[in-house]
């Protein structure tokens, strides 16, 4: 077998060194009746590369790849062009096959990259510090809520209706067990966000307000007042960013006063991958750093005084603090963080701003084109690269029908909120730099057809 270097002769000589007769002598601790004799039934035997490749390719072909057709899905996962050099870097064996950098003298490559990542994320979010990544945006969001609980010693969180419904679900799952209370209701089809209602809800029992920016319907609202109000009540403002490219065009949550900013980093470097692995971004104000979950990389010096980097503040973490840790997370999204950082380094501020404006202006153009169709209305007055259309029919069957025509039209609100009748006509359309004018025309034509 191609991955196994031991030859039969090696095995014999090693057994002799150990002083046993057969491999089964090494499994003596396994009770007889639990020991399997032959290979497990009903599973195929080993296969060569060609056969495996053929099998996997056949499965891959059964999917509609986004790049093969007009594609407008967003809602928490965005299709951006990832430069070829990013994939080259993450395939370097020294990054790909490295362990967590617990031996810093021979892990400066990973560590320095994490330090760069943390700095990039903090600057993008407009906060003081960021960690070395979480699993994804949705789990980062829950971790932020628990962190706010630890800081404020309160357990009432207010979730904006604009928060991604899957993020809400994740929080609800956990809250059921931790007894946190979560205030939340589904969004309304309205150009205005729920900021006003959130302002009204904050009180002295509130641990945090969680606001997505831009929100699930694509809307952008100033959070400054919310931050101020939260502060008055000693509650925290948690901002959630599912599309980090947006922050190349719009003010950062940190600038508006957010205490904790979390997000999904998949847009940069990572790709769609059917939802994972992604990379959770997690930043906050300096003063909260010892309450953060996850790994942190910090600068220090070596015995000769040379600058170097190490994992630090590990007394927050499970491997040191065990049941008192700030989180149970161990393995995070290291390689995705590297991809994020490599992509961000290619962009730089200039490239990021260009990319963001390109996304935005294409989205504006597309919104205008599509809302010109009879039976289609644009809900948003502001948005970044994603907006909500209100159709004069249920959106969900239309999305399915268009998929059969090889047009991936967007995410219907019916898919996201199956139980919310009033949202059924909503269609969230994302437009990135990968969308061509032809794609827009194809969608427009198909939508016209479907609505006629």
């Amino acid at each position, binding site marked *: 077998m191609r991955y196994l270097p031991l030859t039969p002769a090696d095995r014999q000589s090693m057994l002799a060194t150990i002083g046993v007769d057969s491999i089964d002598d090494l499994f003596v601790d396994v009770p007889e009746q639990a020991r399997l004799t032959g290979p497990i039934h009903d599973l195929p035997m080993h296969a060569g590369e060609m056969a495996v490749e053929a099998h996997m390719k056949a499965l891959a072909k059964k999917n509609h790849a986004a790049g093969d057709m007009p594609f407008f899905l967003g809602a928490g996962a965005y299709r951006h062009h990832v430069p070829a050099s990013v994939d080259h870097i993450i395939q370097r064996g020294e990054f*790909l096959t490295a362990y967590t950098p617990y031996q810093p003298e021979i892990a400066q490559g990973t560590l320095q990259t994490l330090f760069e990542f943390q700095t990039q994320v903090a600057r993008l979010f407009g906060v003081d510090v960021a960690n070395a990544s979480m699993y994804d945006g949705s789990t980062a969001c829950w971790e932020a809520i628990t962190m706010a609980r630890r800081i404020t010693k309160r357990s009432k969180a207010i979730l904006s209706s604009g928060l991604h419904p899957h993020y809400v679900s994740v929080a609800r799952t956990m809250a059921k067990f931790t007894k946190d209370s979560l205030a939340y209701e589904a969004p309304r089809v309205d150009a205005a966000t729920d900021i006003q209602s959130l302002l009204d809800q904050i009180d002295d029992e509130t641990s945090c307000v969680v606001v997505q920016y831009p929100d699930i319907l694509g809307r952008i609202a100033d959070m400054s007042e919310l931050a101020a109000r939260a502060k008055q009540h000693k509650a925290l403002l948690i901002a959630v960013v599912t599309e980090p490219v947006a922050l190349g065009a719009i003010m950062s949550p940190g600038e508006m006063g957010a205490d904790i900013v979390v997000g999904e980093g998949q847009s940069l470097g990572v790709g769609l991958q059917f939802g994972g692995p992604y990379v959770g971004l997690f930043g906050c104000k300096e003063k909260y750093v010892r309450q953060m979950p996850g790994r942190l990389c910090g600068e220090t010096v070596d015995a000769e005084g040379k600058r170097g980097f190490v994992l630090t503040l590990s007394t927050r973490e499970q491997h040191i603090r065990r049941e008192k840790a700030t989180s149970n997370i161990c393995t995070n999204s290291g390689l995705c963080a590297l991809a994020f950082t490599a992509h961000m380094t290619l962009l730089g501020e200039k490239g990021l701003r260009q990319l963001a404006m390109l996304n935005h202006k294409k989205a504006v153009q597309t919104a205008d084109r599509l809302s010109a169709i009879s039976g289609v209305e644009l809900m948003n007055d502001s948005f970044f690269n994603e907006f909500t259309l209100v159709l004069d029919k249920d959106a969900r069957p239309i999305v399915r029908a268009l998929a059969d025509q090889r047009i991936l039209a967007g995410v219907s609100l019916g898919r996201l909120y199956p139980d919310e009748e009033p949202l059924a006509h909503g269609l969230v359309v994302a437009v990135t730099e990968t969308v061509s004018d032809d794609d827009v025309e194809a969608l427009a034509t198909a939508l016209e057809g479907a609505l006629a």
Partner: protein
Amino acid sequence: MSMLAAGRPTKQEENLIMPEQTANPTHSGNRALMVDEPLIFETGSPDRSGVDLPDAPQVESRLSGLERTSPIAVPGLSEAEMVRHYTRLSRQNYAIDVGLVPLGSCTMKHNPRLNEKMARLKGFADIHPLQPVESVQGALGVINELAMWLIKLTGMHGVAMTPKAGAHGELCGILCIRAALEARGDAREVILVPESAHGTNPATAAFAGYKVEDIPANSDGRVDLEALKARLGPDVAGVMITNPNTCGLFEPDMKAISDAVHEAGGFVYCDGANFNAIVGKVRPGDLGIDAMHINLHKTFSTPHGGGGPGSGPVVLSEALSPYGPLPFTARDADGHFRLIEEETADEDHPHSFGRMSAFHGQMGMFTRALTYMLSHGADGLKQVAEDAVLNANYILRSLEDILDAPFAHSGPCMHEALFSDKGFTNGLTTLDLAKGMIDEGYHPMTMYFPLVVHGAMLVEPTETESKAAIDQFIGAFRSVAERAKAGDERLKTAPHFAPRRRLDETQAARNPKLVWTEPEEFAEAAE
């Protein structure tokens, strides 16, 4: 135990003073191929870029006046510089591709390159998690096929595919237990976890709102069955046991433990991080386990990536399966795949504890792990366990004469060999040996884990190391161990040849610098 054939100096200079790389004898500070590399913040600039983008259409923006006007201050590099920057940084890393990474509990096996190629097929890499299910039948097929493999390999009833790493899998399992208990109105509050457990076990139990208590171990490094039985009772929701355990030993009483816990009304969570030792040899389902996570990034060869991403599917017993998370994939009789989400959960999966991450789990890891399984097949996976265990025992027996091996007397180990620093002199410890191994060209073993052994050294070679590689490793390990026992002062300052000497972790923690800031001098000059 031979030395490398290449690179052996013909003139032996045994008593030569070891040349430390204490200073930079070059102008540049570099040492030939050992090139130091500044941060992007020191070399890049916000107006340089490694991308070319088309002009944006000429339309008014609709950003409701929230344009970002302040500097973002993320520097850019040209592609040429970016590639060199990260290539240079990568060269300061140790990794499996560079050499043996015998980290106990981490299963750092070879990551096959076919996996990487398959994960990049556009039909897997370029699909959106919210595409209509008819357009992602192949992706759902991958999840389903992988689930089938996991179920058959473990002999369990069901599997939850969404957890994003081992710890997330633990959380999934514990939430299943809690949901099952709550479903029968049984609000138990305690989870028992042995001291030898990985930190994620107690942390997870706490994260899910449980109190954590210890399970005593016996002198053989295993769960003390009688002591455990004595502690069981109506307040105990369950136990978390690692098997093979973190001392590298199989728990022979596992079935008895399970029976006892079940009898007491609790559930058995098994930490499956060490599944590599028994894959294809033992099915956890035959041991009465209720839930077990599997680190695809260990047993099933998905790359560790310098810290992640991982993937931690959880196999479940019949009792716990109804409580598993959303979404999941179901296969209809006609081969069509459905996605069970909140919408139809009331019908299809009414007891689910809910969603634990936004989408369908770590698809990019699923494609890799499935590729790996198909490559090995049932026969190959069995061979994996056997070779992993063989390699570990070979190391154990080759070094037990020189190093203290606390449980070696009790019989063979599984996939990892446990040693301690007992007998080191002159104040030398496990840490010093580890750093000495760095100079020898190896990644150190796991240090100071499990906690139950003082100065623990946990060595897991995995099955993808050749006999020659292991012999060389043993030779180096023996040599450093001898020096540690002899009290060799120079080990205290090892490593001597790595890109950095020992790093000051205390300073890092006392005065945390977690992001780069403009040095004062520069900042002033810029004003």
